[in-house]
């Protein structure tokens, strides 16, 4: 019997011919270690606590993205601790303040490449599955142990294959497909599992859309979510490597000359579940608080007439060029935004920001009343750059809506796609752009 993508990657990183689901592997080599300023700071503290003073895995790439541009003197101090650590240990790269959100930048600059095992102190490390890497989220102490050894332990996961087919309706985006899937499987429906996104809809989807889906595979508990390597991934990786001149290169060979063709499950691999989803009847989805699994189709939500105080477009989940473009398209046609609503835009990286300046998207967003935030996680995690007051309501393209996540503990967040977010900013209540047409 053949192996799944997950089994192949794990086997190739621990020197085994074959691994089987449920097996514990003690020494799996990682290719890249990532984390944010505060999770890496905790890792540094953990190493201090155990008295470790030896070498650090060079391919450790922290990102100063969570509390930046710094919201307090304390977070500024944490950033300088991380900067010093990077310098002292001569680490490969540091994602600086404003450069972008880790998950986006790592792919954009080919810091993470297809087939890599990425061990990240951030639960959305799964996002790099969009380019057929194996991104695994973990805590700081766990990550610290990898920083000293280059090794992690893993339980080989069972793999769920989810195939999407059919024709997408207007205003239905990758965000809706993943919200629909989380609802179908449950917020722990893929706990400990690898999730393979496949089928014709995924094959036609660009890397940005795949990123949204892989990112949110974390919201159903997945160890990793990924899309098998194909010509779209090849094109994305090649263009990214050329654009940034592969400056952050890890491998001796150019990423463009490496062979990734085996980064897919064998035709006779065993999937512990095979789920088919017909997208034809899927409407835009809205995840109500308090969980990304509490999802309703937009036609139901419109009846609830949920008025909002704030709309957020962007974040790591939906902060790509196409996401901002889609939102701007709605605002240009039906805008401006409603007077008493704040509309915040968080591009996922400075590259996205600058491309959206060039193609006029930022201009449209500004003319329609949006505030453009620097690339940062601040608004999503409720620390700065647009937090909510008591009893306020937000529609956001972020990935989480847990209680206390977006500011005051009585505030509420609804998760939507960028087009619905833009329509909501115009109408004042959560609705599909369809409502603006009539």
């Amino acid at each position, binding site marked *: 019997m053949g192996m799944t993508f997950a089994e192949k990657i794990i086997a190739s990183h621990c020197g085994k011919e074959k691994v089987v689901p449920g097996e514990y592997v003690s020494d799996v080599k990682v290719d890249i270690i990532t984390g944010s300023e505060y999770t890496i700071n905790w890792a540094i503290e953990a190493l201090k606590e155990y008295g470790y003073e030896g070498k650090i895995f060079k391919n450790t790439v922290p990102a100063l993205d969570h509390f930046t541009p710094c919201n307090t003197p304390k977070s500024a101090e944490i950033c300088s601790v991380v900067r010093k650590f990077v310098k002292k240990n001569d680490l490969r790269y540091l994602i600086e303040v404003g450069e972008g959100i880790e998950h986006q930048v790592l792919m954009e600059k080919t810091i993470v490449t297809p087939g890599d095992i990425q061990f990240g102190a951030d639960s959305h*490390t799964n996002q790099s599955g969009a380019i057929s890497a194996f991104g695994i989220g973990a*805590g700081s*102490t766990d990550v610290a142990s990898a920083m*000293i050894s280059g090794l992690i332990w893993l339980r080989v996961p069972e793999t769920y294959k989810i195939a999407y087919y059919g024709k997408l309706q207007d205003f239905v985006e990758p965000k809706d497909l993943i919200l629909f899937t989380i609802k179908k499987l449950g*917020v*722990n429906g893929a706990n400990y599992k690898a999730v393979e996104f496949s089928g014709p809809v995924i094959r036609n989807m660009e890397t940005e859309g795949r990123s949204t889906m892989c990112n949110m595979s974390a919201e159903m508990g997945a160890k990793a979510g990924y899309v098998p390597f194909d010509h779209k991934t090849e094109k994305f990786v090649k263009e990214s490597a050329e654009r940034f001149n592969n400056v952050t290169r890890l491998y001796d060979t150019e990423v463009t000359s490496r062979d990734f063709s085996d980064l897919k499950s064998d035709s006779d691999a065993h999937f512990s579940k095979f789920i088919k989803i017909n997208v034809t009847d899927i409407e835009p989805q809205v995840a109500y608080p308090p969980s990304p699994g509490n999802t309703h189709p937009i036609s139901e939500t419109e009846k609830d007439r949920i008025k909002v105080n704030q709309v957020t477009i962007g974040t790591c989940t939906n902060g790509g060029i196409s996401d901002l473009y889609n939102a701007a398209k709605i605002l240009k046609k039906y805008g401006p935004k409603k007077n008493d609503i704040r509309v915040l835009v968080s591009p996922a990286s400075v590259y996205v920001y600058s491309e959206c300046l060039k193609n006029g998207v930022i201009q449209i967003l500004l003319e329609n009343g949006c505030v453009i935030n620097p690339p940062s996680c601040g608004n999503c995690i409720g620390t700065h750059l647009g937090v909510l007051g008591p009893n306020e309501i937000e529609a956001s393209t972020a990935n989480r809506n847990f*209680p206390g996540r977006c500011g005051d503990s009585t505030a509420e967040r609804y998760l939507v796609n960028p087009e619905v977010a833009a329509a909501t900013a115009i109408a004042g209540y959560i609705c599909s752009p369809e409502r603006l047409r009539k």
Partner: protein
Amino acid sequence: MRKMKGKVWKFGNNIDTDQIIEAKRVNETNPEKYLMGQTDNKRFLEYYQKQENSIKGHIFIAGENFGCGSSRENALTLMKKVGIAAIVAKSFARIYYRNGVAVGFPLVECDYVDEISQGDIIEIDLNNRKIYNRTKLQEYEIHNIPSFIRQILDAGGIIPYRMKILKGE
């Protein structure tokens, strides 16, 4: 491994890391003051904030998928800091479970948590894979901890485990 005995605080399903401790409190000096503040059991925080030291040795009981959400380790290390003895749940979210192994904190999986009530006194015996309910005079089986995970826990966590190997011990 040791036995743990303490008073029970009960929580529901899918208690996420923002309910355990909100992301925005990461850089605060004493975030543990807000531990479990956004969960379904409001009585806990009320009790804890009034009598700060009296939860040492207490045990949290929860349903499915405890600790889902963020990888933020403080959602676990704060439990250690305030002296919670163990967490028993029907299941744990993946990263939370890994974090427990990494820092050597006992996360116990048990199918019978619905039998245990708020305020019960229970004793967890990891070696014999049992929970004894001293209030209700019942006993429940707990899930096995795989031997590989035990090795890490016995080493005192994942960093000492790796350091031992690096030193060639």
